[in-house]
Protein backbone atom coordinates (compact mmCIF):
# COMPACT_ATOMS: atom_id res chain seq x y z
CA UNK A 1 0.00 0.00 0.00
CA UNK A 2 2.68 2.40 -1.02
CA UNK A 3 0.57 5.08 -2.60
CA UNK A 4 -0.29 7.05 0.53
CA UNK A 5 2.75 9.37 0.37
CA UNK A 6 2.00 10.06 -3.30
CA UNK A 7 -1.07 12.06 -2.27
CA UNK A 8 1.23 14.52 -0.55
CA UNK A 9 4.42 14.21 -2.60
CA UNK A 10 2.92 14.54 -6.07
CA UNK A 11 1.13 17.92 -5.70
CA UNK A 12 4.10 19.45 -3.87
CA UNK A 13 6.55 18.18 -6.48
CA UNK A 14 4.56 19.51 -9.40
CA UNK A 15 3.87 22.80 -7.58
CA UNK A 16 7.60 23.43 -7.24
CA UNK A 17 8.35 22.13 -10.71
CA UNK A 18 5.96 24.44 -12.55
CA UNK A 19 7.86 27.73 -11.96
CA UNK A 20 11.08 26.16 -13.16
CA UNK A 21 9.96 25.25 -16.66
CA UNK A 22 7.20 27.60 -17.58
CA UNK A 23 8.87 30.90 -18.14
CA UNK A 24 9.15 30.26 -21.85
CA UNK A 25 6.41 27.70 -22.48
CA UNK A 26 2.96 29.01 -21.76
CA UNK A 27 0.96 25.82 -21.98
CA UNK A 28 2.89 23.90 -19.29
CA UNK A 29 0.99 25.01 -16.13
CA UNK A 30 -2.43 24.10 -17.57
CA UNK A 31 -1.44 20.67 -18.79
CA UNK A 32 0.62 19.72 -15.72
CA UNK A 33 -2.01 20.97 -13.30
CA UNK A 34 -4.83 19.06 -14.95
CA UNK A 35 -2.84 15.85 -15.32
CA UNK A 36 -1.82 15.99 -11.64
CA UNK A 37 -5.35 16.41 -10.33
CA UNK A 38 -6.60 13.67 -12.65
CA UNK A 39 -3.96 11.22 -11.38
CA UNK A 40 -4.85 12.14 -7.79
CA UNK A 41 -8.53 11.48 -8.51
CA UNK A 42 -7.81 8.00 -9.89
CA UNK A 43 -5.57 7.17 -6.93
CA UNK A 44 -8.17 8.31 -4.43
CA UNK A 45 -10.81 6.12 -6.02
CA UNK A 46 -8.42 3.19 -5.61
CA UNK A 47 -8.25 3.66 -1.84
CA UNK A 48 -11.87 2.77 -1.24
CA UNK A 49 -12.70 0.12 1.36
CA UNK A 50 -9.18 -0.22 2.69
CA UNK A 51 -7.81 0.52 6.10
CA UNK A 52 -4.15 1.07 6.48
CA UNK A 53 -1.63 2.64 8.79
CA UNK A 54 1.53 3.80 7.03
CA UNK A 55 4.65 4.27 9.11
CA UNK A 56 6.84 7.02 7.71
CA UNK A 57 10.55 6.25 7.73
CA UNK A 58 9.96 2.84 9.21
CA UNK A 59 9.55 4.17 12.75
CA UNK A 60 6.68 2.64 14.68
CA UNK A 61 4.09 4.75 16.49
CA UNK A 62 4.05 6.39 19.02
CA UNK A 63 7.62 7.40 18.25
CA UNK A 64 7.16 7.84 14.52
CA UNK A 65 4.75 9.81 12.39
CA UNK A 66 1.93 7.83 10.84
CA UNK A 67 -0.51 8.29 8.00
CA UNK A 68 -3.87 6.71 8.80
CA UNK A 69 -6.25 5.71 6.01
CA UNK A 70 -9.73 4.70 7.08
CA UNK A 71 -13.27 5.22 5.80
CA UNK A 72 -13.55 8.86 6.81
CA UNK A 73 -10.17 9.80 5.27
CA UNK A 74 -11.07 7.94 2.10
CA UNK A 75 -14.35 9.85 1.71
CA UNK A 76 -12.63 13.20 2.21
CA UNK A 77 -9.84 12.25 -0.23
CA UNK A 78 -12.38 11.48 -2.92
CA UNK A 79 -14.19 14.79 -2.31
CA UNK A 80 -10.98 16.87 -2.35
CA UNK A 81 -9.55 15.37 -5.51
CA UNK A 82 -12.83 15.26 -7.43
CA UNK A 83 -13.65 18.92 -6.81
CA UNK A 84 -9.98 19.79 -7.40
CA UNK A 85 -10.07 18.17 -10.82
CA UNK A 86 -13.28 19.96 -11.74
CA UNK A 87 -11.86 23.29 -10.59
CA UNK A 88 -8.64 22.91 -12.58
CA UNK A 89 -10.65 22.04 -15.69
CA UNK A 90 -12.72 25.16 -15.16
CA UNK A 91 -9.75 27.43 -14.56
CA UNK A 92 -8.04 26.73 -17.88
CA UNK A 93 -10.26 29.30 -19.57
CA UNK A 94 -11.41 31.33 -16.60
CA UNK A 95 -7.99 32.53 -15.49
CA UNK A 96 -7.05 33.65 -19.01
CA UNK A 97 -9.55 36.43 -19.01
CA UNK A 98 -8.96 38.48 -15.92
CA UNK A 99 -5.93 37.37 -14.00
CA UNK A 100 -2.33 37.76 -14.86
CA UNK A 101 -0.03 35.01 -13.77
CA UNK A 102 -1.11 31.47 -14.49
CA UNK A 103 1.94 29.71 -13.20
CA UNK A 104 1.65 31.18 -9.73
CA UNK A 105 -2.05 30.32 -9.66
CA UNK A 106 -1.41 26.67 -10.44
CA UNK A 107 1.49 26.42 -7.97
CA UNK A 108 -0.60 27.81 -5.14
CA UNK A 109 -3.58 25.66 -6.12
CA UNK A 110 -1.54 22.46 -6.09
CA UNK A 111 0.01 23.42 -2.75
CA UNK A 112 -3.50 23.88 -1.36
CA UNK A 113 -4.61 20.45 -2.58
CA UNK A 114 -1.45 18.76 -1.30
CA UNK A 115 -1.91 20.41 2.10
CA UNK A 116 -5.50 19.23 2.35
CA UNK A 117 -4.57 15.68 1.36
CA UNK A 118 -1.98 15.70 4.11
CA UNK A 119 -4.49 16.99 6.66
CA UNK A 120 -6.98 14.21 6.11
CA UNK A 121 -4.36 11.51 6.10
CA UNK A 122 -2.32 12.60 9.09
CA UNK A 123 -2.40 10.71 12.36
CA UNK A 124 -0.29 13.08 14.38
CA UNK A 125 -1.35 16.37 16.02
CA UNK A 126 1.57 18.54 14.98
CA UNK A 127 1.69 17.11 11.46
CA UNK A 128 -2.00 17.99 11.16
CA UNK A 129 -1.19 21.56 12.18
CA UNK A 130 1.65 21.92 9.66
CA UNK A 131 -0.38 20.61 6.71
CA UNK A 132 -3.31 22.78 7.72
CA UNK A 133 -1.04 25.83 7.71
CA UNK A 134 0.32 25.01 4.24
CA UNK A 135 -3.17 24.76 2.83
CA UNK A 136 -4.45 27.81 4.68
CA UNK A 137 -1.57 30.09 3.62
CA UNK A 138 -2.08 29.10 -0.01
CA UNK A 139 -5.76 29.90 0.27
CA UNK A 140 -5.05 33.32 1.83
CA UNK A 141 -2.89 34.16 -1.15
CA UNK A 142 -5.39 32.77 -3.65
CA UNK A 143 -8.34 34.73 -2.26
CA UNK A 144 -6.62 38.00 -3.02
CA UNK A 145 -5.33 36.84 -6.37
CA UNK A 146 -6.62 39.61 -8.55
CA UNK A 147 -5.29 42.61 -6.73
CA UNK A 148 -8.36 44.82 -6.57
CA UNK A 149 -9.17 46.83 -3.49
CA UNK A 150 -12.02 44.62 -2.29
CA UNK A 151 -10.18 41.37 -2.86
CA UNK A 152 -7.19 42.55 -0.86
CA UNK A 153 -9.40 43.69 1.98
CA UNK A 154 -11.19 40.32 2.03
CA UNK A 155 -7.88 38.48 1.93
CA UNK A 156 -6.50 40.51 4.82
CA UNK A 157 -9.59 39.91 6.94
CA UNK A 158 -9.44 36.17 6.23
CA UNK A 159 -5.71 36.15 7.00
CA UNK A 160 -6.08 37.82 10.38
CA UNK A 161 -8.91 35.58 11.57
CA UNK A 162 -7.31 32.42 10.24
CA UNK A 163 -3.96 33.22 11.78
CA UNK A 164 -5.44 33.90 15.23
CA UNK A 165 -7.22 30.55 14.99
CA UNK A 166 -3.98 28.78 14.02
CA UNK A 167 -2.17 30.28 16.99
CA UNK A 168 -4.91 29.10 19.35
CA UNK A 169 -4.60 25.62 17.87
CA UNK A 170 -0.84 25.58 18.32
CA UNK A 171 -1.25 26.70 21.93
CA UNK A 172 -3.70 23.87 22.54
CA UNK A 173 -1.34 21.32 20.95
CA UNK A 174 1.42 22.58 23.25
CA UNK A 175 -0.86 22.17 26.29
CA UNK A 176 -1.81 18.64 25.28
CA UNK A 177 1.85 17.75 24.74
CA UNK A 178 2.72 19.09 28.15
CA UNK A 179 -0.03 17.11 29.80
CA UNK A 180 0.40 13.78 28.03
CA UNK A 181 3.93 13.69 26.62
CA UNK A 182 3.07 12.51 23.15
CA UNK A 183 1.80 13.92 19.89
CA UNK A 184 0.29 10.90 18.17
CA UNK A 185 -3.53 11.16 18.18
CA UNK A 186 -4.08 7.55 19.25
CA UNK A 187 -1.45 7.78 21.95
CA UNK A 188 -2.87 11.01 23.39
CA UNK A 189 -6.32 9.37 23.39
CA UNK A 190 -4.98 6.39 25.27
CA UNK A 191 -3.23 8.51 27.91
CA UNK A 192 -6.22 10.84 28.33
CA UNK A 193 -8.38 7.88 29.29
CA UNK A 194 -5.97 6.94 32.06
CA UNK A 195 -5.22 10.21 33.81
CA UNK A 196 -7.94 11.97 35.84
CA UNK A 197 -9.76 14.91 34.31
CA UNK A 198 -8.08 18.25 34.81
CA UNK A 199 -9.24 21.76 33.96
CA UNK A 200 -6.19 22.14 31.74
CA UNK A 201 -7.52 19.43 29.42
CA UNK A 202 -10.85 21.23 29.21
CA UNK A 203 -9.05 24.49 28.37
CA UNK A 204 -7.06 22.76 25.63
CA UNK A 205 -10.29 21.26 24.28
CA UNK A 206 -11.99 24.65 24.10
CA UNK A 207 -9.03 26.32 22.36
CA UNK A 208 -8.67 23.45 19.88
CA UNK A 209 -12.33 23.17 18.93
CA UNK A 210 -12.73 26.96 18.86
CA UNK A 211 -9.78 27.30 16.50
CA UNK A 212 -11.12 24.65 14.15
CA UNK A 213 -14.61 26.12 14.24
CA UNK A 214 -13.15 29.36 12.85
CA UNK A 215 -11.78 27.33 9.94
CA UNK A 216 -15.16 25.63 9.48
CA UNK A 217 -17.06 28.95 9.56
CA UNK A 218 -19.67 28.13 12.17
CA UNK A 219 -21.65 30.90 13.59
CA UNK A 220 -19.87 32.87 16.22
CA UNK A 221 -16.73 32.63 14.07
CA UNK A 222 -18.07 33.05 10.56
CA UNK A 223 -17.22 36.69 9.88
CA UNK A 224 -14.51 36.04 7.31
CA UNK A 225 -16.58 33.86 5.02
CA UNK A 226 -18.99 36.35 3.41
CA UNK A 227 -16.08 38.57 2.44
CA UNK A 228 -13.58 35.94 1.32
CA UNK A 229 -15.76 33.72 -0.87
CA UNK A 230 -17.16 36.33 -3.26
CA UNK A 231 -13.83 38.03 -3.82
CA UNK A 232 -11.93 34.94 -4.85
CA UNK A 233 -11.81 33.77 -8.45
CA UNK A 234 -14.68 31.36 -9.16
CA UNK A 235 -12.80 28.02 -9.14
CA UNK A 236 -11.15 29.05 -5.86
CA UNK A 237 -14.55 29.93 -4.40
CA UNK A 238 -15.76 26.49 -5.40
CA UNK A 239 -12.75 24.88 -3.74
CA UNK A 240 -12.98 27.06 -0.61
CA UNK A 241 -16.65 26.57 -0.04
CA UNK A 242 -16.88 23.03 -1.23
CA UNK A 243 -13.74 21.50 0.18
CA UNK A 244 -11.55 23.66 2.38
CA UNK A 245 -14.08 24.44 5.07
CA UNK A 246 -14.82 20.72 5.20
CA UNK A 247 -11.34 19.24 5.10
CA UNK A 248 -9.79 21.76 7.47
CA UNK A 249 -12.85 22.36 9.61
CA UNK A 250 -15.49 19.68 9.89
CA UNK A 251 -13.20 16.68 9.29
CA UNK A 252 -10.78 17.72 12.02
CA UNK A 253 -13.60 18.51 14.47
CA UNK A 254 -15.09 15.07 13.79
CA UNK A 255 -11.76 13.30 14.13
CA UNK A 256 -10.82 15.06 17.36
CA UNK A 257 -14.19 14.80 19.05
CA UNK A 258 -15.03 11.22 18.14
CA UNK A 259 -11.56 9.68 18.14
CA UNK A 260 -9.59 11.71 20.64
CA UNK A 261 -11.71 13.26 23.36
CA UNK A 262 -14.72 10.99 23.34
CA UNK A 263 -18.34 11.89 22.73
CA UNK A 264 -20.72 12.67 25.56
CA UNK A 265 -23.92 14.56 26.26
CA UNK A 266 -22.34 17.99 26.81
CA UNK A 267 -20.47 17.92 23.50
CA UNK A 268 -23.59 16.71 21.73
CA UNK A 269 -25.60 19.64 23.07
CA UNK A 270 -22.83 22.07 22.14
CA UNK A 271 -22.69 20.86 18.54
CA UNK A 272 -26.46 20.87 18.13
CA UNK A 273 -26.90 24.41 19.48
CA UNK A 274 -24.10 25.82 17.34
CA UNK A 275 -25.51 23.98 14.32
CA UNK A 276 -29.04 25.35 14.79
CA UNK A 277 -27.81 28.92 15.28
CA UNK A 278 -25.64 28.62 12.13
CA UNK A 279 -28.56 27.29 10.12
CA UNK A 280 -31.03 29.98 11.01
CA UNK A 281 -28.75 33.00 10.97
CA UNK A 282 -27.05 31.87 7.76
CA UNK A 283 -30.23 31.58 5.78
CA UNK A 284 -31.81 34.74 7.22
CA UNK A 285 -28.76 36.81 6.28
CA UNK A 286 -28.65 35.19 2.85
CA UNK A 287 -32.14 36.26 1.81
CA UNK A 288 -31.18 39.92 2.09
CA UNK A 289 -28.25 39.75 -0.32
CA UNK A 290 -28.21 40.99 -3.86
CA UNK A 291 -24.72 39.80 -4.76
CA UNK A 292 -24.94 36.26 -6.09
CA UNK A 293 -21.70 34.90 -4.66
CA UNK A 294 -22.24 36.53 -1.27
CA UNK A 295 -25.64 34.85 -1.12
CA UNK A 296 -24.06 31.49 -1.89
CA UNK A 297 -21.42 32.09 0.80
CA UNK A 298 -24.08 32.72 3.47
CA UNK A 299 -25.91 29.61 2.40
CA UNK A 300 -22.67 27.68 2.91
CA UNK A 301 -22.75 28.73 6.56
CA UNK A 302 -26.28 27.39 6.80
CA UNK A 303 -25.47 24.02 5.28
CA UNK A 304 -22.44 23.60 7.53
CA UNK A 305 -24.89 24.06 10.39
CA UNK A 306 -26.94 21.17 9.01
CA UNK A 307 -23.88 18.92 8.89
CA UNK A 308 -22.89 19.75 12.45
CA UNK A 309 -26.44 19.06 13.68
CA UNK A 310 -26.35 15.68 11.98
CA UNK A 311 -23.01 14.82 13.54
CA UNK A 312 -23.96 16.19 16.91
CA UNK A 313 -26.92 13.85 17.29
CA UNK A 314 -24.53 10.99 17.87
CA UNK A 315 -26.75 8.13 16.74
CA UNK A 316 -25.61 6.07 13.73
CA UNK A 317 -28.48 7.36 11.62
CA UNK A 318 -27.61 10.95 12.47
CA UNK A 319 -23.95 10.40 11.66
CA UNK A 320 -24.91 8.83 8.33
CA UNK A 321 -27.07 11.87 7.56
CA UNK A 322 -24.29 14.29 8.49
CA UNK A 323 -21.63 12.53 6.42
CA UNK A 324 -23.90 12.12 3.41
CA UNK A 325 -24.86 15.80 3.60
CA UNK A 326 -21.16 16.70 3.70
CA UNK A 327 -20.63 14.77 0.47
CA UNK A 328 -23.69 16.23 -1.19
CA UNK A 329 -22.97 19.77 -0.14
CA UNK A 330 -19.51 19.72 -1.66
CA UNK A 331 -21.03 18.54 -4.94
CA UNK A 332 -23.86 21.01 -5.29
CA UNK A 333 -22.17 24.01 -3.68
CA UNK A 334 -19.15 23.80 -5.95
CA UNK A 335 -21.55 23.33 -8.89
CA UNK A 336 -23.36 26.55 -7.91
CA UNK A 337 -20.12 28.50 -7.47
CA UNK A 338 -18.79 27.32 -10.85
CA UNK A 339 -22.11 28.37 -12.36
CA UNK A 340 -21.82 31.81 -10.84
CA UNK A 341 -18.30 31.95 -12.25
CA UNK A 342 -19.60 31.12 -15.72
CA UNK A 343 -22.31 33.77 -15.38
CA UNK A 344 -19.75 36.33 -14.27
CA UNK A 345 -17.40 35.40 -17.12
CA UNK A 346 -20.13 36.05 -19.64
CA UNK A 347 -22.13 38.93 -18.21
CA UNK A 348 -19.37 40.67 -16.28
CA UNK A 349 -21.43 41.22 -13.17
CA UNK A 350 -22.37 39.42 -9.97
CA UNK A 351 -25.30 41.64 -9.05
CA UNK A 352 -28.61 39.79 -9.20
CA UNK A 353 -30.51 42.93 -10.12
CA UNK A 354 -28.62 43.32 -13.35
CA UNK A 355 -29.10 39.81 -14.69
CA UNK A 356 -32.10 38.23 -16.28
CA UNK A 357 -33.54 35.78 -18.77
CA UNK A 358 -30.33 33.82 -19.01
CA UNK A 359 -32.08 30.61 -19.95
CA UNK A 360 -32.44 31.82 -23.48
CA UNK A 361 -28.81 32.56 -24.13
CA UNK A 362 -26.91 30.16 -21.84
CA UNK A 363 -28.96 26.96 -21.77
CA UNK A 364 -26.45 24.55 -20.25
CA UNK A 365 -25.37 26.92 -17.50
CA UNK A 366 -28.95 27.67 -16.54
CA UNK A 367 -29.87 23.99 -16.53
CA UNK A 368 -27.03 23.14 -14.19
CA UNK A 369 -27.92 26.10 -11.94
CA UNK A 370 -31.46 24.76 -11.80
CA UNK A 371 -30.22 21.28 -10.84
CA UNK A 372 -27.95 22.77 -8.17
CA UNK A 373 -30.73 24.92 -6.71
CA UNK A 374 -33.20 22.02 -6.59
CA UNK A 375 -30.55 19.84 -4.90
CA UNK A 376 -29.73 22.32 -2.19
CA UNK A 377 -33.39 22.97 -1.43
CA UNK A 378 -34.10 19.32 -0.96
CA UNK A 379 -36.42 18.39 -3.81
CA UNK A 380 -36.78 14.63 -4.43
CA UNK A 381 -35.25 12.61 -6.08
CA UNK A 382 -32.06 14.72 -6.14
CA UNK A 383 -29.39 14.08 -3.55
CA UNK A 384 -30.08 16.94 -1.15
CA UNK A 385 -33.50 15.52 -0.33
CA UNK A 386 -32.15 12.22 0.96
CA UNK A 387 -29.56 13.69 3.28
CA UNK A 388 -31.91 16.28 4.76
CA UNK A 389 -34.57 13.61 5.26
CA UNK A 390 -32.15 11.37 7.12
CA UNK A 391 -31.07 14.19 9.43
CA UNK A 392 -34.67 15.14 10.25
CA UNK A 393 -35.67 11.51 10.86
CA UNK A 394 -32.60 10.95 13.03
CA UNK A 395 -33.50 13.99 15.13
CA UNK A 396 -37.01 12.68 15.71
CA UNK A 397 -35.76 9.19 16.50
CA UNK A 398 -33.23 10.49 18.99
CA UNK A 399 -36.03 12.12 20.92
CA UNK A 400 -35.37 15.74 19.95
CA UNK A 401 -38.33 16.97 17.94
CA UNK A 402 -37.42 20.65 18.39
CA UNK A 403 -34.20 20.09 16.44
CA UNK A 404 -36.19 18.49 13.65
CA UNK A 405 -38.55 21.48 13.62
CA UNK A 406 -35.68 23.95 13.23
CA UNK A 407 -34.19 21.81 10.45
CA UNK A 408 -37.50 21.87 8.55
CA UNK A 409 -37.74 25.67 8.96
CA UNK A 410 -34.18 25.99 7.64
CA UNK A 411 -35.01 23.87 4.60
CA UNK A 412 -38.09 25.90 3.77
CA UNK A 413 -36.13 29.14 3.98
CA UNK A 414 -33.41 27.65 1.73
CA UNK A 415 -36.05 26.79 -0.85
CA UNK A 416 -37.30 30.38 -0.86
CA UNK A 417 -33.72 31.63 -1.15
CA UNK A 418 -33.01 29.62 -4.26
CA UNK A 419 -36.33 30.47 -5.83
CA UNK A 420 -35.12 34.06 -5.54
CA UNK A 421 -31.81 33.17 -7.24
CA UNK A 422 -33.47 31.39 -10.15
CA UNK A 423 -36.08 34.04 -10.59
CA UNK A 424 -33.67 36.94 -10.77
CA UNK A 425 -30.94 35.36 -12.84
CA UNK A 426 -32.47 32.70 -15.03
CA UNK A 427 -36.15 33.00 -15.69
CA UNK A 428 -37.19 36.52 -14.82
CA UNK A 429 -35.68 39.96 -15.05
CA UNK A 430 -33.75 41.96 -12.49
CA UNK A 431 -34.65 45.57 -11.86
CA UNK A 432 -31.71 47.11 -13.64
CA UNK A 433 -31.75 44.67 -16.51
CA UNK A 434 -29.75 45.80 -19.50
CA UNK A 435 -31.27 44.91 -22.89
CA UNK A 436 -28.37 45.75 -25.16
CA UNK A 437 -25.72 43.79 -23.40
CA UNK A 438 -28.13 40.89 -23.19
CA UNK A 439 -28.12 40.47 -26.93
CA UNK A 440 -24.42 39.66 -26.99
CA UNK A 441 -24.37 36.88 -24.43
CA UNK A 442 -23.54 33.41 -25.56
CA UNK A 443 -22.73 30.11 -23.92
CA UNK A 444 -19.33 29.73 -22.30
CA UNK A 445 -16.56 27.63 -23.81
CA UNK A 446 -16.32 23.86 -23.85
CA UNK A 447 -13.77 23.29 -21.12
CA UNK A 448 -15.87 25.33 -18.74
CA UNK A 449 -19.03 23.36 -19.51
CA UNK A 450 -17.62 19.90 -18.86
CA UNK A 451 -17.27 20.32 -15.05
CA UNK A 452 -20.80 21.74 -14.87
CA UNK A 453 -22.29 18.77 -16.71
CA UNK A 454 -20.30 16.19 -14.73
CA UNK A 455 -21.29 17.71 -11.40
CA UNK A 456 -24.97 17.95 -12.43
CA UNK A 457 -25.02 14.28 -13.38
CA UNK A 458 -23.40 13.39 -10.07
CA UNK A 459 -26.01 15.45 -8.23
CA UNK A 460 -28.84 13.59 -9.91
CA UNK A 461 -27.52 10.09 -9.35
CA UNK A 462 -25.80 10.31 -5.97
CA UNK A 463 -28.99 9.45 -4.15
CA UNK A 464 -28.46 5.88 -5.31
CA UNK A 465 -25.35 5.60 -3.13
CA UNK A 466 -27.58 5.31 -0.09
CA UNK A 467 -28.82 1.87 -1.04
CA UNK A 468 -27.94 -0.38 1.83
CA UNK A 469 -28.20 2.33 4.46
CA UNK A 470 -25.66 2.02 7.19
CA UNK A 471 -24.14 -1.14 5.81
CA UNK A 472 -23.73 0.08 2.25
CA UNK A 473 -21.04 2.27 0.79
CA UNK A 474 -21.07 4.70 3.69
CA UNK A 475 -20.80 1.86 6.17
CA UNK A 476 -17.05 2.10 6.86
CA UNK A 477 -17.34 5.84 7.43
CA UNK A 478 -20.10 5.53 10.02
CA UNK A 479 -18.19 2.66 11.59
CA UNK A 480 -15.08 4.79 12.11
CA UNK A 481 -16.98 7.62 13.76
CA UNK A 482 -19.30 5.47 15.78
CA UNK A 483 -16.55 3.14 16.95
CA UNK A 484 -15.25 5.89 19.12
CA UNK A 485 -11.91 6.22 20.84
CA UNK A 486 -11.12 2.57 21.60
CA UNK A 487 -11.47 1.34 18.04
CA UNK A 488 -9.15 4.07 16.79
CA UNK A 489 -6.50 3.33 19.41
CA UNK A 490 -6.53 -0.37 18.54
CA UNK A 491 -6.28 0.34 14.86
CA UNK A 492 -3.27 2.64 15.06
CA UNK A 493 -1.31 1.32 18.02
CA UNK A 494 -2.24 -2.30 17.75
CA UNK A 495 -0.83 -2.81 14.30
Amino acid at each position, binding site marked *: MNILPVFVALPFGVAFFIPMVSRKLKWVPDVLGNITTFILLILSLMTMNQEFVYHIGGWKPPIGIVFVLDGLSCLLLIIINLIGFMATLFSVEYIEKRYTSKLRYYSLFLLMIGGMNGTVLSGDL*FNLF*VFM*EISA*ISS*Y*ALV*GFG*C*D*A*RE*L*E*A*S*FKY*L*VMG*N*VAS*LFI*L*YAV*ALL*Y*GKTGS*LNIADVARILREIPYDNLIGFAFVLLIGGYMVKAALVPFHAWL*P*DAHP*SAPAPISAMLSGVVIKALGTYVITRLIFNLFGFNQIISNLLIYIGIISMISGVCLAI*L*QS*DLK*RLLAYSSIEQMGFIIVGLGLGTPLGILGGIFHLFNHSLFKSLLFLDSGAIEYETGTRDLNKMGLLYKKMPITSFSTLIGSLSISGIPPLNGFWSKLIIILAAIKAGRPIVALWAVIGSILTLSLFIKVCRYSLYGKGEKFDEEKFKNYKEVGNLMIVPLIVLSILCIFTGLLLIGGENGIFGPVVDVINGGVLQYINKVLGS
Partner: protein
Amino acid sequence: MIYYLCFVVFLIGLYGVTCKKNIVKIIIGFTLMEYAVNLFLILLGYRKEGIPPILSKGQDIFEFSKKAVDPLPQALVLTSIVIGLGVLSLMVAIAIRLYQRYGTFDITEIKKLKG
Protein backbone atom coordinates in the same frame (compact mmCIF):
# COMPACT_ATOMS: atom_id res chain seq x y z
CA MET B 1 4.82 30.60 37.29
CA ILE B 2 6.64 31.37 34.09
CA TYR B 3 3.96 29.59 32.09
CA TYR B 4 1.43 32.17 33.26
CA LEU B 5 3.75 34.92 32.06
CA CYS B 6 3.85 33.31 28.63
CA PHE B 7 0.08 33.40 28.56
CA VAL B 8 0.13 37.08 29.57
CA VAL B 9 2.38 37.89 26.58
CA PHE B 10 -0.05 35.95 24.35
CA LEU B 11 -2.93 38.04 25.67
CA ILE B 12 -1.01 41.27 25.09
CA GLY B 13 -0.46 40.21 21.48
CA LEU B 14 -4.15 39.36 21.16
CA TYR B 15 -5.03 42.83 22.48
CA GLY B 16 -2.77 44.31 19.81
CA VAL B 17 -4.48 42.34 17.05
CA THR B 18 -8.03 43.10 18.05
CA CYS B 19 -7.96 46.63 19.42
CA LYS B 20 -5.46 48.58 17.37
CA LYS B 21 -6.39 50.46 14.24
CA ASN B 22 -3.15 50.63 12.32
CA ILE B 23 -2.29 47.65 10.14
CA VAL B 24 1.38 47.72 11.12
CA LYS B 25 0.41 47.50 14.78
CA ILE B 26 -1.76 44.48 14.01
CA ILE B 27 1.22 42.80 12.35
CA ILE B 28 3.40 43.51 15.38
CA GLY B 29 0.67 42.05 17.61
CA PHE B 30 0.88 38.86 15.57
CA THR B 31 4.63 38.59 16.05
CA LEU B 32 4.12 38.95 19.82
CA MET B 33 1.56 36.15 19.81
CA GLU B 34 3.90 33.85 17.90
CA TYR B 35 6.78 34.55 20.23
CA ALA B 36 4.58 33.68 23.18
CA VAL B 37 3.45 30.35 21.73
CA ASN B 38 6.96 29.33 20.68
CA LEU B 39 8.34 30.28 24.09
CA PHE B 40 5.65 28.22 25.79
CA LEU B 41 6.46 25.24 23.62
CA ILE B 42 10.18 25.35 24.44
CA LEU B 43 9.64 25.89 28.15
CA LEU B 44 7.60 22.69 28.28
CA GLY B 45 10.74 20.69 27.75
CA TYR B 46 12.69 22.19 30.62
CA ARG B 47 14.11 20.00 33.31
CA LYS B 48 15.67 21.37 36.48
CA GLU B 49 19.48 21.49 36.22
CA GLY B 50 19.35 19.92 32.81
CA ILE B 51 22.08 19.72 30.21
CA PRO B 52 21.64 20.45 26.47
CA PRO B 53 20.46 17.38 24.56
CA ILE B 54 23.74 16.80 22.71
CA LEU B 55 25.51 13.54 23.40
CA SER B 56 29.28 13.79 23.48
CA LYS B 57 31.85 11.03 23.20
CA GLY B 58 32.24 8.81 26.17
CA GLN B 59 29.02 9.82 27.88
CA ASP B 60 26.73 7.15 29.22
CA ILE B 61 23.35 7.07 27.49
CA PHE B 62 21.26 6.33 30.56
CA GLU B 63 22.83 9.10 32.61
CA PHE B 64 22.34 11.42 29.67
CA SER B 65 18.69 10.64 29.24
CA LYS B 66 18.03 11.28 32.90
CA LYS B 67 19.54 14.74 32.83
CA ALA B 68 18.98 16.20 29.35
CA VAL B 69 16.17 18.58 28.51
CA ASP B 70 13.53 17.41 26.06
CA PRO B 71 14.61 17.88 22.43
CA LEU B 72 11.22 17.27 20.78
CA PRO B 73 9.70 20.73 21.43
CA GLN B 74 12.83 22.30 20.02
CA ALA B 75 12.27 20.58 16.69
CA LEU B 76 8.61 21.60 16.73
CA VAL B 77 9.50 25.22 17.40
CA LEU B 78 11.93 25.34 14.45
CA THR B 79 9.11 24.38 12.11
CA SER B 80 6.69 26.75 13.79
CA ILE B 81 9.02 29.74 13.49
CA VAL B 82 9.37 29.14 9.77
CA ILE B 83 5.59 28.89 9.33
CA GLY B 84 5.23 32.16 11.20
CA LEU B 85 7.79 33.75 8.91
CA GLY B 86 5.78 32.71 5.86
CA VAL B 87 2.53 34.16 7.18
CA LEU B 88 4.26 37.37 8.26
CA SER B 89 5.77 37.99 4.82
CA LEU B 90 2.36 37.42 3.21
CA MET B 91 0.77 39.90 5.62
CA VAL B 92 3.38 42.55 4.90
CA ALA B 93 2.97 42.12 1.13
CA ILE B 94 -0.81 42.47 1.38
CA ALA B 95 -0.39 45.53 3.63
CA ILE B 96 1.80 47.25 1.00
CA ARG B 97 -0.79 46.57 -1.69
CA LEU B 98 -3.60 47.79 0.59
CA TYR B 99 -1.71 51.04 1.10
CA GLN B 100 -1.50 51.45 -2.63
CA ARG B 101 -5.23 50.92 -3.18
CA TYR B 102 -6.68 52.80 -0.24
CA GLY B 103 -4.00 55.35 0.59
CA THR B 104 -4.12 54.72 4.30
CA PHE B 105 -3.13 52.17 6.89
CA ASP B 106 -6.16 52.77 9.08
CA ILE B 107 -8.54 49.83 9.11
CA THR B 108 -11.58 51.92 9.96
CA GLU B 109 -11.36 53.44 6.50
CA ILE B 110 -10.83 50.20 4.61
CA LYS B 111 -14.46 49.22 4.44
CA LYS B 112 -15.67 48.70 0.91
CA LEU B 113 -17.20 45.27 1.55
CA LYS B 114 -20.58 45.57 3.22
CA GLY B 115 -23.78 43.68 3.74
